[in-house]
């Protein structure tokens, strides 16, 4: 009974005290939740991310930075950088909602009017009104009582696809905000992207080391089934399309003799290229350029390099031109509204992190502090704001 009370209470973001509510109150809560859900379902989510480039009516309103936090410390957090006054507020989610995100934030994206946040160890998908930062729903991702451990997220059509460490991909309806389907993928999927009419899932097998997985599952977003599986390097991770019919992905190797590499997969599943001359941990693609970062754990050196996705050749080994120090590069993203490249720095991995914004020439524009281990970015555009 206590437990049921807790669940009902946590969903009810209006309740502010941790009390065990009587049954009639729980009914009220349920009705309230229904009301909220009906309200949200009135909003039509777009089928595709909005086109933003060179649209003068769209400009950056803010940046959400997801701070991963530390394992078992319940300190995943959201930093919001507000362009109107150029300030960053860490603990933004907590301040808005009176509770924390939970343990180990692993991915975030804005789709339509909503910000979706994957909280890995808490096994939750937090759905937030992107403009206000107020939570609309918290969707538990459990298999019975066992956590599925969601990892990464990708929107497509009316759905949000979340890959889970328990070898599944959950499909969440963006209007009803509930899991409508579960698709079997490979082992411990740790990267997902929507491209070329399909959902691409990289199966890491990372929890079964040294027996890593080395495949990418392709899911049909209409039938919710896996249609093919392609072989890539071992322990694949982030996967993103380049817009020219290819997908770039990181294969993290075994942290020993097999190094972490950037690879290119074409849409028919052929491994086109492995960049064998450098190590890579993550990347972002903007136009015909991939910005690829690496952190060398032995030397403690961070690097960001530039790759031309048309020629598939490195263009520049050092993206940062102005000597901005980045101690431990931990995430990268491109905001089409500002055309800036954002690079996050985890510094010592246990404390305050930092985000730097660079123009495409590699010169720093501004910086702000974040929470622990900033890894994910979601860009809030003014067009999405009603009033404010």
């Amino acid at each position, binding site marked *: 009974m*206590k*437990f049921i009370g*807790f669940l009902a*209470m*946590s969903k009810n*973001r209006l*309740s*502010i*005290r*941790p009390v*065990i509510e009587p049954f009639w109150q729980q009914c009220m809560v349920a009705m309230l939740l229904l009301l909220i859900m009906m309200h949200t379902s009135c909003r039509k989510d777009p089928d595709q991310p909005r086109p933003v480039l060179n649209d003068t009516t769209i400009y950056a309103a803010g940046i959400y930075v997801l701070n*991963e936090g*530390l*394992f*078992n*410390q*319940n*300190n995943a957090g959201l930093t919001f950088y507000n362009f109107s006054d150029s300030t960053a507020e860490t*603990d933004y989610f*907590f301040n808005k*909602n*009176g*509770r*924390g*995100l*939970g*343990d180990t934030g692993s991915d975030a994206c804005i789709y339509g009017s909503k910000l979706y946040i994957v*909280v890995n*160890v*808490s*096994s*939750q998908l937090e759905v937030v009104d992107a403009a206000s930062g107020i939570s609309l729903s*918290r969707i*538990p991702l*459990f298999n019975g*009582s*066992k*956590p599925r*451990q969601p990892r990464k997220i990708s929107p497509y059509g009316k759905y949000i696809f979340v890959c889970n*460490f*328990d*070898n599944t991909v959950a499909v969440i309806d963006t209007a009803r905000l509930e899991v409508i389907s579960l698709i079997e993928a490979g*082992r*411990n999927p740790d990267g997902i992207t929507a491209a070329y009419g399909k959902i691409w899932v990289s199966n890491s*097998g990372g*929890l*079964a*080391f040294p*027996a890593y997985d080395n495949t990418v599952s392709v899911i049909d977003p209409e039938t919710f089934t896996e249609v093919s599986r392609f072989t890539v390097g071992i322990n694949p991770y982030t996967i993103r399309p380049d817009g020219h019919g290819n997908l770039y992905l990181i294969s*993290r190797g075994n*942290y020993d003799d097999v190094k972490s590499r950037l690879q290119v997969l074409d849409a028919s599943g052929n491994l086109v290229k492995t960049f064998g001359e450098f190590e890579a941990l993550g990347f972002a693609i903007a136009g015909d350029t991939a910005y690829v970062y690496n952190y060398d*754990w032995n030397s403690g050196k961070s690097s960001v390099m530039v790759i031309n996705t048309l020629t598939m050749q490195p263009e520049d080994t050092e993206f940062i031109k102005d000597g901005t120090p980045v101690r431990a590069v931990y995430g990268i993203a491109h905001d089409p509204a500002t055309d800036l490249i954002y690079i996050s720095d985890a510094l*010592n*991995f*246990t*404390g*305050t992190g930092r985000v730097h914004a660079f123009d495409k020439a590699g010169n720093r524009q501004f910086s702000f502090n974040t*929470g*622990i*281990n900033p890894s994910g970015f979601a860009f809030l555009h003014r067009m999405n704001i009603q009033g404010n």
Partner: protein
Amino acid sequence: MKSNVTVTVLLLAFLISRATAQEPVTDTLMLKGVEIASEKISRKELTSFPLQSLSATQIASVAGNSVADALKTFSGVTLRDYGGAGGLKTVMVRSLGAQHTGVFIDGAPVSDIASGQPDLGKFPLGNLEEVSLNVGVGGSEPMPARARSGASVINLRSIKPDFGKFKTRGNAGIRGGSFGLINPFLRLDHKTGTGSWFGIEINPLFSKGDYPYLVDNGPAGSARLKRGNGDLTSLAANLSFSAKAGDSSEVRVFARFYNAERGLPGAVVFYNPHSSQRLTNKDLSLGFQLMSDSKRTSLLTNACWSYAWLRYLDPDYLGYDHSLDNRYLQQELHLSQAGTFNISRHFSASLASDFILNAFSGSQYNTDPWRGSFLLSAILAHQTRNTGAEAGFLASVIKDSGKDPSEEALTHKVSPYFSLSVRIADVPSLRLRMMYKHSFRMPAFNEMYYALVGNPGLLPEAAQQLNTGLLGSYAPFKGLLFRLSADAFFNRVHEKIVAIPTQNLFVWSMQNIGEVRTRGLDIQLDASAALGRRGKASVNLAYTYQEASDISDKNSSDYGNQIPYIPWETFSAMFQLVHRSFSIDYNLLFNGYRYVSSENIPQNLLPSWWISDAGLAWSPEAGRYKYRIKAGVTNLFDKDYVVIRSFPMPGRGFVISGAFNF
């Protein structure tokens, strides 16, 4: 630091030369195998190194299941406790890592080569006559070189049976309490000859560990839940046989057994209360001890073999087989010969040499590592009525199997130790003391070899301790006694083993990159008063202030900040009132605020807490029989608190126990 050492040496030399001209010793420090109560008090008062102890009556007033609960009342001790009867418990002494403190039961070591310090929750509190903490590990009594190798040592001493005119003595009883605690115990000692006896001790413990706790998640997310999967079933058992061989020798053989099966409730994770991991222990130690005492020499021989098997099971692990089943086996052989030789009336030399062999195999290790250690300790002590001085060293040669051929094959070190004390006044008795010790701890096998995390190239973590203090006692009139000790200490840790993330945040690795400087103050004040003919009141207060600064990296923003989990202030108070066969105890423990990281920001802050335990006992005596019935409350004010972040501690609990001594 160097100049401090020089000063110490000079002082030492000066005092030795001065002291040799003194009168013969009356309050000798030579402690034989058997001590009488009055000598123990004088030992505590005379030592030139910080020594704290709890007597059997004080131990009886401690609420809790294990020796960890007794140790947390000592000053300078920071307990790490994951909560509940089954939660891992270790202690850090004066901000040094838990691996710097050795643990000995009746002179025989207990260790854990995988983690560095054994889980103190394994050792039940009952049947202990003394729990003591020796910082610096001075003293001229014979002890294994290994005991001297630590920065401090915890000694647990079992009750020696007093047969009187009876052949069999013992006690039996049961404790029961909140959160499903049931703990029967039995001890039986049987005399088999004039100087020989056989002892058996059995201590099973069952605990459900389903205590309520607060999920501290802001105004909108906080909730009260019950800890799940926190059950513990354990059995601790000892068998021993002791025999006097000749006038002054005693032989003891023992077998110590510990078997436990428990759930690991895990960290509190918001919105995800699921936990299903299990831990199984099977430990066995067999030992042989030979003690012999003569006018000029005391000898102590120790031979001990121990075996510890551990299984960690995660049935819901999302790896290949959807479960994780790790098994680890460690074995240790420890041989030690120690002796103290009274060279002259004032001088004694204490020598010991140890050989230790550790072997390990485990499913998360790439190799089956072993370690061979040879330790030699020598201490020269000089004792007069007015002064005491000790100087010595520990030489170690250690071979690790897992070192790269490129690295130095052997670790060899010589660690010096000095201490001295000087009597300043007789009434009230006042003594000054000073101690310097260099010690190091070898990297634990988990730090060296654990898959992905381990780093076989780790160097030992070195610690230097400097202590200066004042000891006083004053008895204004018969029946009232005050004792005070106040010590200032300065510690320096070099090449501290620190985990830093490698590869990704789930994979951390060990590096020798930490430097820590600690400055602190320890104060203990004990007072006892006789109340009429059959009453007694006592108060024991202990306070510690310590600044443990992370000075690893001058360029870091954390430079100079307090290291994780070390509170600036700790305080404990034990009040005991005895009248006839009734006694009331009230124990108070305070832990100041501390941070979980060297980044001392509000997000990393753990708030301070005050915890009170209270107990009421009735122990009537009827001839040879003694009964004891005790009712106790732990965490009297039901305070929600954590020692380790995300691991809540139990709230208010009740314990009732009944024991029968025969």
